[in-house]
């Protein structure tokens, strides 16, 4: 592709502009799925618990006695201002939920991602380089298993293992109650708060709680990364430039590292970015498994409370994150991939 730098900035601009219609389709979908169907959010949340008049008052306060189209426009307006509404059941702004619980989800996913990359990339590279060897078969089997095994089952099995082998190691929650109580909340990310407090026991307590959930979610992701890296290394090894490098007499390990692997990584970065969606889904399940106080746990809680506005707000937030990261990755990829740059 021989295109000037003008096409790169155009590509980025178009990609960013496309976010708006895409988000609009998603928001419309979420709104109408949750709201158009007969029955209303208030009676779903409080039905049978309050009198009909009290329900009407709440409906009026929430503004859901107005025509649907008005509510729809208002919802779009709210989201444009990064306001995701207030929960019905306990009247909290969804943004507060994101602030209070987003940190736990963030540290969980980042930890898992780091683990997955550290484990996945070297293993995938090994499997790709020594393909069809026993090591390759074993690594691929591991990849298949992480795909077939439900993440929550893997989590439960790990809990059982830890409970048997290391009694006393935390298997539930993000920290001991005492730590949560003593650490000053500043950043709403417990791990950072613990670090800022400078309290050694608090830091190690929070870190210990992170190990098992991050490991579980990381296993799921590492399976994906292994497959990707392996395929891309194999493809890159077939490239002419690898042949050329070999012909120049460069040692095989340098060929693999400098020529094949680096090129393979470009493709991997894109697809890893697409894993954000899978990571979020995995995080919701992991949080439920380990009683992790993140956004997934909140989502489940409000689902069980049949709180339409909370579910709508949280789902909108998740969708926003996914769409924005996918754009971000596309832009990054446009910047780092030499085939686009030149």
């Amino acid at each position, binding site marked *: 592709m021989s295109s000037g730098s003008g096409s790169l900035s155009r590509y980025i601009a178009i990609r960013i502009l496309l976010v708006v219609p*895409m988000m609009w389709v*998603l928001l419309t979908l979420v709104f109408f799925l949750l709201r158009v*169907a007969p029955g209303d959010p208030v009676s779903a949340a409080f039905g049978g618990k309050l009198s009909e008049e009290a329900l009407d008052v709440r409906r009026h306060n929430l503004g859901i006695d107005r025509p649907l189209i008005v509510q729809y426009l208002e919802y779009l307006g709210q989201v444009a201002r990064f306001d995701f509404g207030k929960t019905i059941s306990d009247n909290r702004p969804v943004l507060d939920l994101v602030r209070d619980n987003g940190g736990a989800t963030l540290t969980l996913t980042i930890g898992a991602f780091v683990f997955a990359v550290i484990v996945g990339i070297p293993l995938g590279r090994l499997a790709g380089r020594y393909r069809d060897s026993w090591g390759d078969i074993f690594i691929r089997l591991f990849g298949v298993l992480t795909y077939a095994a439900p993440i929550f*089952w893997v989590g439960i099995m790990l*809990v059982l293992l830890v*409970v*048997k082998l290391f009694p006393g190691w935390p298997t539930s929650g993000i920290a001991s109650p005492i730590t949560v109580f003593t650490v000053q909340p500043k950043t709403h990310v417990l791990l950072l708060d613990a670090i800022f407090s400078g309290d050694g026991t608090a830091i190690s307590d929070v870190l210990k709680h992170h190990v098992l959930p991050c490991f579980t979610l990381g296993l799921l992701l590492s399976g994906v990364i292994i*497959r990707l890296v392996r395929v891309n290394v194999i493809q890159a090894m077939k490239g002419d430039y690898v042949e050329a490098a070999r012909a120049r007499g460069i040692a095989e390990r340098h060929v693999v590292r400098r020529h094949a692997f680096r090129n393979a990584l470009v493709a991997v970065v894109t697809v890893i970015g697409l894993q954000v969606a899978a990571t979020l889904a995995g995080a919701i399940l992991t949080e439920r498994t380990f009683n992790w106080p993140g956004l997934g746990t909140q989502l489940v809680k409000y689902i069980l409370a049949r709180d339409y506005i909370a579910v709508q707000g949280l789902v909108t937030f998740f969708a926003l994150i996914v769409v924005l990261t996918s754009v971000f990755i596309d832009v990054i990829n446009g910047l780092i991939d030499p085939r686009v740059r030149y």
Partner: protein
Amino acid sequence: MRNLLRQIWNTKGLARWILLTGTIITVVFVVFALFAPWIAPFDFNQTRDASGVKFEKLGSPGAGHLLGTNDQFFDIFSRVIWGARTALEVVLLSVILSVAIGVPLGLVSGFLGGWVDRVLVFVMDAIYTVPYLLLAIIFAFMLNDKLGSGIVAAALSLVAIYIPQYFRVVRNTTVSAREATYVEAARAIGAKPTTIMRKYLFGNVVQSVPVIGTLNAADAVGTLAALGFLGLGIQPNEASEWGYDLSRALDDAQAGVWWPALWPGLAIILLITALTLVGEGLNETLNPALRRRRLRKVQFTDRVRTSDTEEVAPR
């Protein structure tokens, strides 16, 4: 159909083994599902034996209860067997429905082109960007209120996430097939658009549907379990569902009790693996691109391996 069977019969080597292993395990689960009342010693919601004595809570595996009982006094072996029936019912229903909606939609969209096509592609792409589990959660959340929490609601929540996949594949094949000479010839002899779609395009674009169908089936087993695990799936009095049983086993696991969690999970893994193997095997058998390459001995392993790994990668 006969053509399909002949192709399967003609497979060789790895593809054959993959297909065979997957089919055998799947058949075992189908047998479980069909003959659950005879294979399972108890009903899926039975908590007392024939003489009215209540089962032990969290009874360990052994005599009486082969795999033990769980915290709801259910016999785990029976729940696992009955769970196969639930899983297969949901999977079958959701795959059939999403094929029935996604394939015609893709065909029409690809054939007509124009703004209909553009709008549909855009909407499907937007749906595709949402994490599949999140989409299933929204649908299950909504449907549970309207339809109750039974098999139909669970299957319908899965349908939504698979329609875009069929739509994409069928639409793209249609777009490329539309310009083919045989379609032009059909048009020249005055065939109506519906005839062209039905008689000329349909047979050519459904080739990949069996493969996507089986891979989706594997995916559906996992997603159904995930929904059940989050409390959005099928309730225990309606049917036995593995994911729900796993969510009940959470607290027991914290206490070190292993048997309520182990078996439903193993069942899920086995069924997913088996269906994936069938899908991969079918892919290598039916995909004309892969099939043609098989003739070239040297290229064979490379090509097949590469594309099969790509196929499995979840999005």
